[in-house]
């Protein structure tokens, strides 16, 4: 049944796209054009926009070589279009301008993608949210890393405010610590690929876990004794953006563990009220559960004993558990 659903779904997708292929309608993402305009040169542009000259020449876009821009003009007009009519009249409508009042986000991106062909922009949520490159990038600035309009993470948190909230929780990756003083730390784009990727906008072509293991390679294994959710998805237990609980856990121990496991049998042990004789009988069924059992239960961190929760090659001590208790 699942395969049938999958085939129907994929077939529908392919059919839809095929129909669209067959429609010779006006393209939306074709490059914008300026009628009757021809290229001039950067020198003509600097005649009026002299302030741009110094920063642009140091900027990577100003230094670019002709063998990099195959089939595209280099210089101001590679992005702003042929400038002859604009330079003659000074009319801002006769040149491509960017930002909120300029070309549509799709047209702006299309111009950038002429050269940045390695980007999978159409893969990204930003593309489908009608975001253009210049929402994040300031093209004329010189010294900002990646030509960002603002440094990370502030740039990202302008829109992703729920994530901002999480990164302010007591447990977080060090995304804010660098922002305070300009020191190097993690940034959002260490994990996220804002330009689109095969896996949920993340910087991996494999699985989410493989992204985490880029830095946390000690949990790579593959281990002899596995903890199944660890190999399924790190985010079953961890919230990478921040958490109240230690170690970026979604909940504190033992509660996170108790989402998928019952309490350990020790914690449910029926015991004595009061003092215990040196050799207690084994059958306690006629007495109430001892309060210490509960204290043990609620204060226990499962990983104090099951310390190798991410996997281990060494067997635990117990034979009835076949060595798989992840305690060594």
């Amino acid at each position: 049944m699942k395969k049938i659903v999958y085939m129907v779904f994929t077939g529908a997708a392919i059919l839809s796209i095929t129909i669209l292929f067959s429609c010779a309608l006006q393209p939306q993402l074709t490059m914008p054009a300026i009628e009757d305009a021809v290229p001039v040169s950067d020198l003509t542009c600097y005649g009026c926009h002299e302030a741009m000259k110094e920063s642009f020449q140091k900027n990577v876009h100003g230094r670019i070589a002709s063998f990099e821009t195959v089939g595209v003009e280099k210089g101001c007009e590679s992005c702003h279009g042929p400038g002859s009519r604009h330079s003659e009249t000074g009319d801002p409508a006769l040149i491509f301008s960017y930002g909120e009042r300029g070309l549509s986000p799709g047209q702006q991106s299309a111009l950038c993608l002429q050269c940045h062909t390695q980007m999978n922009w159409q893969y990204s949520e930003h593309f489908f949210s009608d975001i253009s490159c210049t929402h994040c990038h300031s093209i004329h600035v010189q010294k900002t890393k990646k030509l960002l309009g603002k440094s990370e993470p502030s740039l990202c948190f302008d829109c992703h405010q729920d994530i901002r909230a999480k990164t302010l929780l007591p447990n977080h990756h060090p995304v804010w610590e660098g922002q305070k003083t300009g020191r190097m730390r993690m940034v959002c784009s260490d994990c996220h690929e804002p330009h689109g990727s095969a896996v949920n906008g993340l910087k991996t072509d494999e699985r989410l876990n493989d992204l985490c293991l880029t830095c946390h390679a000690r949990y790579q294994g593959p281990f002899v004794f596995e903890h199944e959710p660890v190999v399924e998805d790190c985010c079953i237990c961890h919230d990478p953006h921040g958490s109240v609980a230690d170690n970026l856990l979604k909940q504190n121990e033992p509660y996170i563990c108790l989402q998928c496991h019952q309490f350990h049998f020790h914690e449910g042990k029926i015991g004595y009220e009061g003092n215990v004789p040196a050799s207690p009988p084994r059958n306690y069924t006629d007495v109430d559960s001892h309060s210490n059992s509960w204290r043990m239960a609620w204060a226990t961190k499962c990983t104090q004993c099951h310390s190798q929760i991410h996997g281990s090659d060494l067997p635990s001590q117990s034979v009835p558990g076949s060595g798989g208790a992840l305690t060594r």
Partner: protein
Amino acid sequence: MLCISQVTAQDAEKSESTYDLQINPGLHWTDWDDYRGKAGEYEQLERGIRPDVGISLDGQTKHSYFELQGFYYEDMDNSLSAYIDLLRILDLEFSYFRMPHFLEHDPLTNLDACFRDGGGAPVPPVTEFEDFNAGDEYFLRYSRMESKTTVRVPFLPGSEVFFDYRKEQRHGYRQATTLSKCSSCHVAGKSREINEYTEDFNPGFRSKFGDKATAWFTLSYDYLKRRFGETGEDPQNLYNPAVHPGGSGDVFTNRIQYQDEMLPYNVVPSSEKDAHTIKLHGQFPTITTDVYTNYVNSSTKNMHEQNKSDLESFVARITNALVPGLIVSGKFRVLDIENDDVFVRVNERVGTAGPQAGQTYSQVYPDFDPEFYRKSAMSRTVYDSELSARYKLRKYLTLDGKFKWKSTDRDYYEVEPGDTSTDEYTGRIGLIYRRSNINGYLYYQRESISNPFANPQAACNPSGTNLVPDATPFNGLQYFQFYNMREQTLSNLPDTRDQIKASFSWIISPMVSLNGYYRYISESNDFEWDQKSHVPSVSLWIAPAPDLYFTFYYLYNYQKTDSIICEPVFNG
């Protein structure tokens, strides 16, 4: 309380040449009271006023450009970066930084919750602990070095070869605990030396070819070699002999694999990874279509045990914008992982005392076979399809929709008894409004997941299960029987999730803007687990001068999780 302040003076030196030097000397003052804990997790936290300095130098000649930057904050907290561009043929990027990472030291004292006799001495059954390095503070010195070298080939326009290198290191100590069993559970905590490295060697090439007007392709290939190793000394622990909690002697010897032995624990295996990635991106401007494919083949090997896992992934996506205002995108992905089976041998010891003397555990309980093939939960095939569309309803208004189907078919691991597969269906619809001074969006998304990842042997049946052993530990309920009685499924993953997300941004003037955001998520599953969260926020941005701005910000984050907790009453 943690206070860090920085005073910076700038001494910029400019000349007619294109060299630019900046020296930023500064002072920072740090102090705190109470427990440093999470407030200074990534800080060195030296008390007092201390100097720091930042230096940057950049320059440009006719054909070359360079940037050098350095920042010294503390001896464990500094950075260097460099960028050199020679004739646009050779690009060299280098960066290095290090930082401290403070780690918690668990005093383990909660494990002292035990029965005590009238004199205060613990009596069996107890959970005991011993923190062998109780006074140690734990932190890591983390460093990351990256270099990216790109060579562009002028006689092959649009082509470049690259070699990226990354090395991460962690040095320091962390706490390592382990469990051994004597009269009862005994947790030992020791300081574990950390001396780990991760090295990535990543060469590859990219090439653009075709006709820009009709069909344009970008082909790339890269190879990743990753080496991970931990050379810190493995901690050792003396694993105790099995002693009957009631003082009946060594009657449990055949229930443990090793005793009275000093053995290593918390061993981190070295691993190696090889990955080949090929990407082909095609652009067809005349039919406004974009095609992307990606193939990955990777293999990861545990160098201690020599077992490995192999991964293959293929992705294809096509995006089309032929219909005015409509962009449609279809994606298909298949991923396959094969993780080696491992045969687990168990060191069965012969009982030395009591009724099981002279017999191994499996000889006494022939229904139990302790040795088994570990079939990995990682092995699986995943199919992932997605259809996305965006349609411009009006000049400023866009309709966005997406439908996604993902099927995870595990080779062995059952998420429900007899069922190894999970199917996820996601639908999303949204409205996006963009004008020059007002932007906003409203999204609704629903996810329906059949058989989310779960533990089908999570808990015993709520009633009707007799967990009371017989009079002795030898003829009553055994642990393996107790484990096998767990037939209830539990999971913290939802089978339905509803999400609403809204945002607006109003640029009142070039110097003032007002932003709002709201996100609501409601999720639940069949195992009496549900979770709700909502995050409203509002912010006001004011820029009274070109280089001065203030942001006033309020954000409220609410999350509530309800779940059942299962505790069997067990007398054994």
